Structure formats: C-alpha cells, structure tokens
C-alpha cells in the first residue's frame, strides 16, 4: 500500500540576480549615514594609521572624520578657493592639499594653520601626494606640469613637463621613493622615475584619465577615464591587461578592497561596481542617489565612503558579526531546548528492544482535502489569503492538480459572488506571469464557461471580467510587439551571420513568451 503522494509544487527558477558569496559580503553594510558638505566632494582619503580617520575634500574645506562620528573631528578651512586632493602622509601626521589658486598647502593634522606653502604652479593643483620616503611631495597641476617638492625647506626639486594637458590624478609608489605615476587629460598615464628626470613608461588610456591606482604589489596599475577602466602590467613595460567597460558614464574614482581581491570603481552614472580581480567580472553593484566623484574604502572594508556631486557624503559601515547573528536569532523563535529535545537524545541500550513507530507524514491541508476528493475545499484552501499572495505557485499547482484529476470544473463551479471575485482577482493578478499562464488560461476559460449565464447580475464580478478582458487585450498587444521585435532581431542576426551553405546552427530561437490565446466573450 503506497502512501498518498502530495501535490507537486513546481519549483520555478528564481528571477533576478543570484545570491553569491560576494553579494552576501557586500550587502552586509548598515544603512548609509548621509552628511551634507559645502560642495561637491572631490576627494576622500583614509589615514593609514588607526583609528583610520578620513579626509574629505569638498569646496574650500577639508574635513577629517573619525571612524564613527558623524561630525568632523577636524576641519581645515584656510583655503582661498576650492581645495583639491587632501592626502595623508603614511604616518598619518601630515596632510597635503592642492587648491584652485595653485598654492599647495601642507598641514599638521593636529594643527590648524598650514605648515608650509608650496608656490610655483601657475594653475589649479588637482594632484598632491607624499613620496614613500615622507620628505617629498608630488603635485600635478592644470598647467600641464607635475613637480616634486622638498618638505623641510619648501623648495621645488624637479619639474616634469611631458604631459600636454591637465594632470588630474596620480599616485606615488609605496615601495620606491623615486617612482610615481600621473594620469592626464592628454589620455596618457606616465610612470616617472625621479632619478632619470623623465618618464619611464607611457601608457595610452584612450580617454582623459580621471583616476589611477596601484596594486599593493605595484606590479599592476589601474587607470580610469571615460567609460573605461584599464589594467596595465607594469612589470611587462606597461602592457594593457584588461579593459573593463561596465559603466555608462565617466568613471571617476577607483579603490581596492583591503585584501586586494576586489576592485571598486565609481562613476558619474551613480554606480559603484565591484570586480573580482582574478577574472575581472563584476560581482556586485551599489546604487547611489547622485553622480559619484570620489570613493574611499576603509581598511578591512569596514566602511565605504562615497562623495557625490550633490555635496552629499555617504558613509556605509559594515555590520558587526554579533549584530547580524543577534538579529537572526531573534527572528527564529524556537521551542525551548528542553521541550524540543525531550526524548530525542535518548540512546537505546544494548538490550533494548526498539519499537519503530511509523513516521507520520505531514500533509498540507489542501493535500488532505485532495486525498478525500474534496476538490472545492482544496481550491478554497489554496486560495487562502496567505498562499494566494505569498506563494501563488502553490495555488497554481493545486489548480493544475485539479485539472489533471479532471475535477477542475467541479471545483470552480458553485461559487458565490465573494468566492468568484476572489478567484478572478487571483487570475487577474497572475495570468500574465509567464510561469503560470498555461494553467490559469485553462482555469479562466472554464470560469467563463461556467459563469456565462450569471454575467450581469453582480457589478463586482462584471467589473472584474472587464478588467480581465482589458488585461488580455493589453497582453496580446504586448506579445505582438515582442514578436515584431523578435522578427527584427532575426533579420539582423541573419544578415550579420556569415552564410554557411550546409547548416544553420543558429543561436537558440526559443520563443520565451508563450502566446496567450484567451477569448473573453463577456
């Protein structure tokens, strides 16, 4: 005697993006903290020493924020004009910033007034950085030059005039005191060596370069400009490795996650994309409210800071492990351990005779009713509020099962106004869902057949039937449009594919839209 086989609930493929380890990791951030700055946030730099404060350059100010405070712990306001590129030295003691008025200022993080002023550029300075020996400063300016300065006596050491357009980005090597890289609007990225007084490697990015980034190993260089992010192999003399084109507006900023496994790029298209650095595939994507100008990632990915054109600074902090656990624990309410485990942990002794109790199979309510051939009741159960809204696949599966048993008509018939309108509501809500269409079309046709005679008696039902008719009409129009598009695509493919005289091993042309043929004669 076989046991009753319950109704099979079809498992439909989940629509939308797949849940991967990466999405779980990058989604594990708290709701962002939004801080209004005085102007567009052009630069964010994290201090290399704990507690990893970060400097935010916006308009004429540089604010330094602590890791948790929403108020700046420090601010430098002594700029005559817009400040650019506030950067910490590797010991976190000094901060350098360029300015629209071409003067480069060096600040003590604890002080207020600039320690040194470096004058010599003729136009706005967008790039400032410390070299790895901590005694020199690299600057790049809109006057097409980049310069090295000596900090102690504030004198200019060298000037490089190889670029032919604005220099907007650059980075110094963390391993070698003499190497630095600049990116310019003349589409090139140049690697300079201070010992030879000229550029060593020149790489053509193809677009005005907005940001450059060195890998911690300094073997690879990433440059961003236009819609492209390009990766260069410096050890092979600046050979291009990969070109990524995942944004649809200019990429403005780059960052590496702390372990070097993921690369982040921010763009004016309001997205931050996360790439896997082994295969350079996008593994995650963040959306923001406005175009992004600057991006910063705290060590250990503890927070993501994004500065936008609408002068909003958005800070996302990582959730603590304990926090997330606690929340999960609260959600699951289980019977207390004692009740739950009672008798379950008893280990039979050697001589015990085990009486095996047949495992009672749990059947859902609609299955129990189907087992007793109570078809109308089973359909009622499946149309219950929770199932209908949360798990429509169960309702559809029960309708399908009734159809298979040949009793769908009996189950649908004999309903009052309320029952019928509930049923029609469900059908209207799910008819155009491609997964459910074949089953629901049958049911809808049956309903129309059964209740043809009572049309016009209830305004509620009539209104719903009209809605159904409208829906079907719209769906047919839509399908027609889609078929037209498909036809157009086919002609395009046919003309673009090279002609092969023997076979037509074309791409799968499976119609993803099952045509819905339902005639509503109401």
């Amino acid at each position, binding site marked *: *005697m076989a046991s009753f086989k319950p109704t099979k609930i*079809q498992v439909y493929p989940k629509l939308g993006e*797949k849940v991967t380890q990466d999405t779980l990791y990058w989604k594990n951030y708290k709701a962002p903290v939004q801080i209004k700055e005085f102007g567009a946030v052009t630069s964010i730099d994290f201090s290399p020493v704990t507690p990893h404060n970060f400097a935010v350059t916006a308009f004429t100010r540089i604010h330094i924020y602590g890791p948790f405070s929403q108020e700046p712990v420090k601010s430098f306001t002594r700029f005559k004009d817009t400040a650019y590129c506030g950067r910490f030295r590797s010991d976190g003691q000094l901060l350098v910033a360029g300015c629209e008025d071409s003067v480069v200022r060096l600040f003590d993080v604890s002080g207020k007034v600039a320690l040194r002023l470096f004058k010599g550029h003729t136009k706005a300075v967008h790039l400032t950085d410390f070299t790895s020996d901590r005694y020199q400063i690299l600057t790049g300016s809109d006057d097409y030059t980049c310069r090295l300065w000596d900090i102690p006596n504030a004198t200019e050491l060298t000037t490089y005039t190889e670029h032919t357009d604005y220099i907007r980005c650059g980075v110094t090597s963390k391993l070698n005191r003499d190497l630095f890289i600049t990116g310019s609007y003349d589409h090139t990225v140049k690697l300079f060596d201070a010992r030879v007084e000229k550029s060593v490697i020149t790489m053509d990015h193809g677009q005005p370069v907005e940001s450059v980034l060195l890998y911690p190993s300094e073997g690879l260089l990433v440059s961003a400009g236009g819609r492209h992010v390009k990766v260069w192999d410096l050890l092979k003399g600046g050979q291009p490795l990969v070109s990524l084109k995942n944004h649809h507006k200019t990429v403005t900023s780059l960052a590496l996650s702390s372990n070097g496994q993921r690369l982040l790029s921010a763009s004016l298209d309001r997205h931050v994309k996360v790439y896997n650095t082994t295969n350079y595939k996008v593994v995650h994507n963040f959306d923001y409210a406005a175009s992004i100008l600057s991006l910063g990632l705290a060590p250990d990915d503890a927070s993501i800071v994004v500065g936008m054109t609408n002068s909003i600074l958005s800070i996302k902090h990582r959730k603590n492990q304990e926090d997330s656990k606690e929340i999960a624990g609260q959600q699951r309410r289980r019977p207390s351990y004692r009740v739950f485990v009672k008798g379950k942990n008893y280990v039979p002794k050697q001589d015990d005779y085990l009486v095996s109790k047949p495992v009672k199979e749990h059947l859902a309510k609609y299955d129990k009713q189907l087992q007793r051939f109570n078809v109308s009741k089973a359909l009622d159960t499946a149309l219950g509020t929770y199932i209908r809204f949360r798990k429509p696949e169960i309702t559809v599966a029960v309708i399908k099962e009734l159809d298979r048993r*040949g009793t769908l008509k009996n189950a649908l018939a004999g309903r009052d106004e309320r029952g019928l309108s509930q049923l029609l509501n469900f059908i209207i809500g799910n008819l155009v869902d491609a997964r459910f269409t074949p089953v629901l079309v049958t049911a809808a046709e049956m309903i129309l057949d059964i209740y043809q005679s009572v049309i016009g008696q209830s305004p509620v039902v009539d209104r719903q039937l009209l809605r159904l008719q409208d829906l079907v009409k719209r769906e047919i129009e839509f399908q027609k449009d889609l078929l037209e598009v498909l036809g157009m695509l086919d002609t395009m493919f046919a003309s673009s594919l090279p002609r092969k005289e023997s076979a037509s*091993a074309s*791409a*799968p042309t499976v119609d993803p839209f099952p045509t819905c043929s339902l005639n509503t004669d109401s």
Partner: protein
Amino acid sequence: MVEHGDIRVVHCGGSKINFRDPVITHDSRFLLCASGEAVKVFSTSTEECIHELRGHTGLVTGVLLRPSNHLQVYSSSLDGTLRLWDFTDGILIKTCVIGYPIYSFYASDKHENVIFIVASMPKRFQLVAVHLPQSGDQMVEAQELSAVLSGVNPNPAAIAFGRGGEFIASVNDLQLEVYFFKKQKSYRFFLKEDNKKGGWNTFTCVACHPKDDCIATGHEDGKIRLWRNFNHKKEYTYSTLHWHHSTVSSLCFTPEGTNLLSGGVESVLVQWRYNQESERDFLPRLGGAITHITVSPDGSLFCTSHSDNKITIIQSCVKVSAVIQGLVKGDSIRTDLMMDPRSKALVLNGKPGHLQFYSLQRDKLLYNLDIVQQEYIHESGLQQFEVVKAAFDASGSWLATVEERHQKAAELELNLKLWAFDEQTQSFVLNTTISAPHDAQITAMCFCQPTDSQTTLLVSTSKDGHFKAWQLAAPAHTEGPSWLCDFVSAYHGLVPECCSFSADGSLLAVVFQEVVTVWSPSTWELLTTLSQPPGAVSDLCFGRLSCSKYLLGTTASNLLCWNLLTCSLEWTTSMDVRRLVADPLSENMAAFCYQSGSTDLFVFKPSEPRPLFSHKAVCSGKVTQAVFAPREEMLESCEESSQWLNRSQLYFLTQQMDLMTFTTKAEEDRLLASSKQLVIDDSVAMTPFYLLLGKHRQQQQEHQDSDSSLWAERTALPQTSASMKELLQTPAHVLPSTSYLCSMFVQSLLISVSDARSAHAEEEMESEKEEEDSEEEMESSRSKPELAAAAATESDTPALTKAQARELRRVRKLDHSWLAGLLDS
C-alpha cells in the same frame, strides 16, 4: 540462408498471474494461481515461487482446492482437461478429459465427485455438471455430463455457490438466476436496463453468504446489491450499498460471513460489516485496479489480484504482508527495451507512471521506479502522465526519462527528468526536472556512450525541429550539480527522428527525415551529411569495435550502411527493417524485418557480406522493441551459427507484448540440469538461504548417524566424506556458531572406542541433570539400546566389561536425545 535448428525462440518473463483468482491453501502457507499454461505455487510468507504445476497444453482457466482433500487441487484449462495435483510435491495425480474448452469451474462440499464447469457449447455458454469417474487410472474420460444452467457468463466471478452448495447463483447481463439443487428449480430476477440516475445496472460479479440466505451482486455503476428472500418469485428484496464510483469487479464474503469484501477500479479494498453496512474499512492505493479478491479458508489472509500483474496478500484488512509481482505488460511499451548497466536488469514501462526493473537472470521483478511521482487517479477517460522515453548512460549512474501528458488538442505537458544513482540507497534519485524541455514531443534521446569521459552528455530530439544537448553543470552555489541545456540546433526546419552516439562518443548522428547529419559533440560543428533518398531514415546505429567506421540506417525499404571514413554508401540491401539493434559487446547487429505478416531476424556484421544467422518467421506481427542483454558469463559455443549468442542474449517484444529470447540447445540442457539439482522435497519455500541451511541440516543428521554408528561398527573414517567437504566449503556466515559445530566435528574425527568414550564422557557429565529428568523415558527405551549394544558386543568387542556396557548405553541414549533436540529445532 539456412535455418538453424539448434537455436530456439522461447518465451520468458512469465505469464499473467492475475488472469484468474488465486487460491490460498487451508494452512495459509501457499498461494496457487493460474499462470499461462501452468499453475504456480507461491509461498505466502516469502513470495517465492515453489513449484510450477506443468502439464496443461492450453491456457489454465481456474484453480480450485479439492473439497474432499485439502492437499489436492484441481485445475482446468482451455485444452479441455481437468487435472488433479498434489501441490505440496507438485505431482500430477489425475487427468480428466472433458472434451470441451473449460472457461471456469466450481465445486462444493455437498456435491461429491461432481465438478461444475462452464463450457462453450454451440451458440452459448453452459454450466455443466460433470461426474468424475471413480477409477484409479491416471487418465480418465468424463462421460456423465448434465447441463445445469444455460446462457451463463464465462467470467468465473459470475457464478457462486450458496450455503455450501444448496443453490447456485449466476448473473449474466441484467439477470440474476438462482438454482436450487433440492427443488431442481430456478428463479430469475431482472433489473431494468437503466435507472433514473443514469447508472448501469449490468451485473458484474456475484458472491453468496456462507451461512445466510443472502446473495451479493456487484454492478457496473459501482453499486452492490444484497439480495434476500430470493426463493420467492415475487417477494424478494434487495438492499443497495454504494461506495465504488465505477464497476465492482470482485466480491467476496469472509468464511464466517461477518464481512463482505469488494474491490474495483479504484484499487481500494472495501470491507463491509455484514448487517452493519454503514461501517466499512478501507485499504486504499493497493496498485492497479483490483480484479479478484479471495480469502483464505481460515479468514486470516486476504488476497487481491491487480490489473498490473500483481497479487497482494493482506493480513485481515490491515496490513499488506506480501506482494507477488510479475512482469507488468501494459497495453503499449512506449519506452524501448533497455538494460540497466548496473543491475543488468531489463527496464521498460511498468505500472502507469513507473519504470520496472526486471531481472532476466532470476526472472523476477526487482522494483518499480516511480517516475511521475503523482497520485494516480483511477478513473477511466482521464489523461495520465505516461513515461514515453528513458535512457541510461553507459555506467548506469544516470537515467533520463521523459514523461508526457496529452491534455486537450494543443496542450502538451512534457517533463524531462534526470535521475542519479545513489550508492547508499541503491536506487535512482531525482536530480533535475526540466519542464517543457521542448515545444513538441521528444522523438529520441541518447546519452554519450564512453565510460571514461568525465562529462556526460544527453541529446534529445523533438518534433519541434530542434535537437538539444544537455550537460551536467558545475555545482551551483547552494545546490548540487544539475543539468542545463548546452546546445540547441536545427537543420533546415526538418524534424529530427532519432539520434545516436558513436561508441567512442566522438560523433553524434542525428536523422532529419532523409538526411543523416553527423556532428562533433566537442565543438558542435556539423561534420557531414549523408543521404540516400527515397525514404526517411527510421533507425540509426553506429558500428562497434572493429566496425566502428560504419554507420547503419534503416528506411522503409532499405538497410543502408555508410562508411564514415569515405562518407559514402558502403552497401545497401532491400529489406523492411523495423528494428535494428547493436550488441554492445561485439560487432554484431540484429535486424528485425517485417515480411508478409511475420518478422524475420538477421544477425550480421557490418563488415561482412553474409549474415551470421538468420531466422525466418520469428513471430507473427511486427517487432519494434529489442535489446541485447550482456551475459553474466560467456558461453563457449564453437558453432558458427550460435557464436553470436556467446556474449549477449537477444530479447525482443512481440506485438502481443510477449517477451521472447533466443536460446541454444546446450544452454537449455544446462538450465534443465541445474533446475533438477534444485529440487528439494521439503515444502518450505526454496530460497538460496534455505538450500544452504537445508543441506547443512541433512549433513548434521548424517553426522549424527555416522557418529553413533562409528564406534559400534568400526567403519572407515569419514574424513573424506562429501558432506564434510561441503561443510567446510559452506560460507561461514550461514553456518551455526562454531561452538555448536565444534563438538560434532571433533567427534567425527575420533577413531577408537576408548577415545570416543572419553569424548562422550565429558558430555555425559555436563548433561547429567538432563538425564535424570528424563529417567522414565530412559526406562521405556532401555530395551532397544540393549539390543543394539548386544549386537555391537557380539560383532567386535566381546571384551567389554559390564560397567563399560552401561556407560555405552547411557552415551547412546544421550546421543539420541540430543539428535532429537536438533531435529526439533
């Protein structure tokens, strides 16, 4: 083309066991049922077939216990004979020739030596009483025939004896006829053809209460009527019970008459309380539709036959205790015949929505695999899911099945399921379900053949004009690996009919009507097309081993062979090949050709012009399903004509759904010899386990005998005896514990009188107490041992002292009691 006399076509797979109602013997240990031309005796506890009572030359139409001797059984057959058997030993006792084909027969206690048979007289069926002649001959002819009723239904369920044989009730169409033997008078009751509610009143079966005057009849509309007062023409009454929704096919009262059992298409056994008909018990989901119900004479066992060739034994309406399942032969086998590479079982459609695995070696159904996994609704006219295609991969670790359900005109529900073999449960577990894999019916499906490759590939072709390749995808993040579509292709919008992989898996051939396209599965490149109009290619086969360069195809009128190296036609011959199968272990191919109403078989190698073997008129009708089953051990036949059967055996299915195979003379002889070996005289079910233990038991007895006689007669040493050898060769796990055997073994090795005595003395001490208990017994049996002892002393050892003699006596007594204990246990 020479006919080869030594290769024969034989039936296999057994016959229907649900043809007539089975019989349970008085001790409830055996179940007898008609099966083809034999009666099978099954054990009710182990489900094993113990005997086959063979002798009839026609279909056996009934089995009945002899009322006067419950160790004998009658069987009737369409060959016009009644035979009496001793079913415990499987011996034919008597044959009674009637002369007319017997459709069913009845007997009762009150009519000694009279058997009532239903035979087809000219025009109509008649119930005839046959007086069995009383003679000692093996073969007697019945002369005294007297008609009782005419115009009866040949269905055995339509006639029943009431009150132990006082009257007989017969139903036919819309009429119930009751005949009283004493009064020699019959009463007839008619029902209207159609009552108000549109039910069908036609009678289907009848049963009589064993004690009361009550007749229960089943009807086509699912009603059961209980008739009373039927010895009056006018004042009869009946009450109606209605639970079944369609035809009641069988009714049965329990021996005491307390319950009425009924069953029908719903496959639910309903137990009605007699006189309290509102109370009923149900036993649902027994399998196929119930065709017969019988109750054992003591009422402890019920037994139902089902339309899916199954007999279920039920312990008093609560628990299914045993299931005897034969090969299920549905109306049509939609899947081809297949071999499961792991279990070497034949796989084909079984119960609705199932695949059955049938072991050819043991001729037994192994198990049914539920493919559809949905509740089966027993209702006629309902479109059910059917398993239409199935395929195994070469190692047997994957099974692909296709099920479909044709609903209304356009709608087709199609599911492709992939099953992985689970080592732990030793069965197939569902891995992936692909709903609607194609837009139209799937015409063919095959797995990539090579065993060594890591990736398994499945190709399915469909009437929608596409063929698709499915591949096991890498494990997803959360679930295990599942199957995904890897490649879709079409060829000029033609419908692909069949597909085949080459033996090494490097080529895939797909037939698009007249064109054979050859693809490379690694790059999915179309390599070449082969075509030989006119006529669409219907079957396709790659050559194997040394013939792997050949590709064979069949059209409606030709058998074609292409050479794949030159891409040209190698040879062609004109024949209507319906089925082409390749032997997986050799180069041989078998072609079944349909010619003027019968099917011929040709076995050939693609490289050789002459066929290896040909057999004209294998069977009548077309053969569309056949398979080569690899043998477990190779035959070593040197004859040229039967060499093709050395490695594998060819099975095929005829149009009448009979499973047939080819055997050689030598093989048959071997089988016969082995079956003779297996004959044992005990009535216990013959299992391999029993064979071992039973033999061992006999050995033990022999041991005992030899032991006891050893010292007295001073015979030769038994150390080289066969029984000893066998004891030593028997696997240890089936033997009794060593401690149990040891003493016996030691005894058997002992030689001299004194040694034996000392060995026995030990035992004697141990069982001193036992001896005391049975003092009286000893007294009574003293005389006999004394005699024996006297004989012993006379023959060899006159020097025995009196004390020794007494001791001996004691020892022997001991020995015997021990032996008796052994035997009892």
